[in-house]
């Protein structure tokens, strides 16, 4: 079915004939429709046109997924459509990943992420991981049903900038507080930016459990993570200047 649709798309639109802007907009549409083939083709065309891999990723793929995220939030798209879109983005990313590594694209920071203990839902968490990775973060994904002990071990081992926690169940989301309280007890809380997300969460809950921020969706998670990293660098730079003077 998807292949037929892809073929029709190919027949209808000659991607190579499009201008850069038209092609990028077409790729947003193809991502929206979850079409892998045109995304692969569009990615290759932009690279042939000497686009930087990082620009292809951010301007075509991540921006496309941001649009998907908005329509998911507004109830226009549902989980299967988002998964198809994510699959298409993943296909494009597979081309870009080795190139990004070669070109030394900026690493924005390191994130340890996982779905909390008692919860095995990972669609949202996987989407967030993919988007963050695409945006230039290094991701250490602990998977699902992650205990406080596992989070702590990973934090110690990987020394990330950010800890990301996800939950889909009302019954499991309080576990985020268990993790954050344990970090406080061990005087580790201020060493990490803590971001939380998941369908039943909200801003109030994020504050109540002591997270730095609640992220409504994957695109917001990327922006929030970038924003916190900027602030972190500014604080470091400020501290550096202060000690120099």
């Amino acid at each position, binding site marked *: 079915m*998807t292949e037929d649709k892809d073929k029709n798309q190919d027949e209808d639109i000659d991607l190579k004939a499009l201008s850069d802007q038209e092609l990028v907009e077409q790729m947003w549409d193809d991502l929206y429709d979850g079409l892998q083939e045109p995304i692969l083709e569009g990615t290759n065309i932009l690279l042939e046109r000497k686009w930087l891999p990082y620009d292809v990723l951010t301007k075509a793929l991540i921006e496309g997924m941001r649009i998907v995220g908005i329509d998911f939030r507004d109830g226009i798209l*549902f989980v*299967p459509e988002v998964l*198809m879109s994510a699959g298409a983005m993943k296909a494009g990313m597979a081309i870009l990943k080795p190139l990004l590594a070669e070109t030394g694209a900026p690493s924005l920071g390191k994130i340890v992420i996982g779905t909390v203990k008692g*919860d095995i839902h990972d*669609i949202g968490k996987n989407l967030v991981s993919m988007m963050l990775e695409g945006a230039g973060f290094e991701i250490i994904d602990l998977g699902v049903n992650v205990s406080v002990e596992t989070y702590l071990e990973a934090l110690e081992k990987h020394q990330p900038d950010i800890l990301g926690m996800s939950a889909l169940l*009302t*019954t499991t989301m309080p576990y985020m507080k268990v993790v954050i309280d344990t970090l406080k007890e061990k005087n580790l809380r201020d060493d990490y930016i803590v971001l939380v997300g998941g369908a*039943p969460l909200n801003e109030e809950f994020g504050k109540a459990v002591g997270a730095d921020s609640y992220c409504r969706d994957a695109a917001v998670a990327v922006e929030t993570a970038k924003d916190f990293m900027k602030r972190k660098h500014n604080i470091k730079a400020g501290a550096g200047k202060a000690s120099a003077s």
Partner: protein
Amino acid sequence: MQEDEKKPRKVLLIACGALAREILAIREQKGLENLHVTCLPAKLHNRPALIPARVRAKIRAAKSCYDKIFVLYGDCGTGGMLDVVLREEGVERIGGPHCYAFFAGQERFERMMESDPTRFFLTDYLARHFRTLIYEGYGLDRHPHLRDLLFGNYRGVVYLAQTESEELVRAAERAAEMLELPLEVMRTDYGELAPFLERIA
């Protein structure tokens, strides 16, 4: 005046459509004639964030016509927002995070989830409508390869059976087959739902 006092109170139950059949069965079994029922569409579970506002609208529309209103929803993925609305409206709901919990019994369900969170639960309603709600609802008919992404972390299906029905057991078996997971059937009857309805009526 004395006759009025003897009249049973008029109670409205605002419920999830997924529970309508069970409520009506209990009402008939227990003779709870004064219990009136209105339902919201079960498909609201696909957008749980909409549930609190829809329940509030129902409460406000009915408040002047009933002596007492109760709500038959679990938290159902609203992240506590349904309880915030109910506190504001002064309306009580059945306890628990969702219907699996009050069918299985809260403590038993908690123990089950603690010991193994990798089980996917079916009720009579979900067994009956699995193909439409879950299989087609999650696009598995069109995109079978999504099954691993959606259900790859599950290790089994538990059918919490409210009624004894060979037909529903077969439906649950078919559901488990579609997910390629082993099935366990657990007879719960109506669990905590029946005593809740008796108490409020």
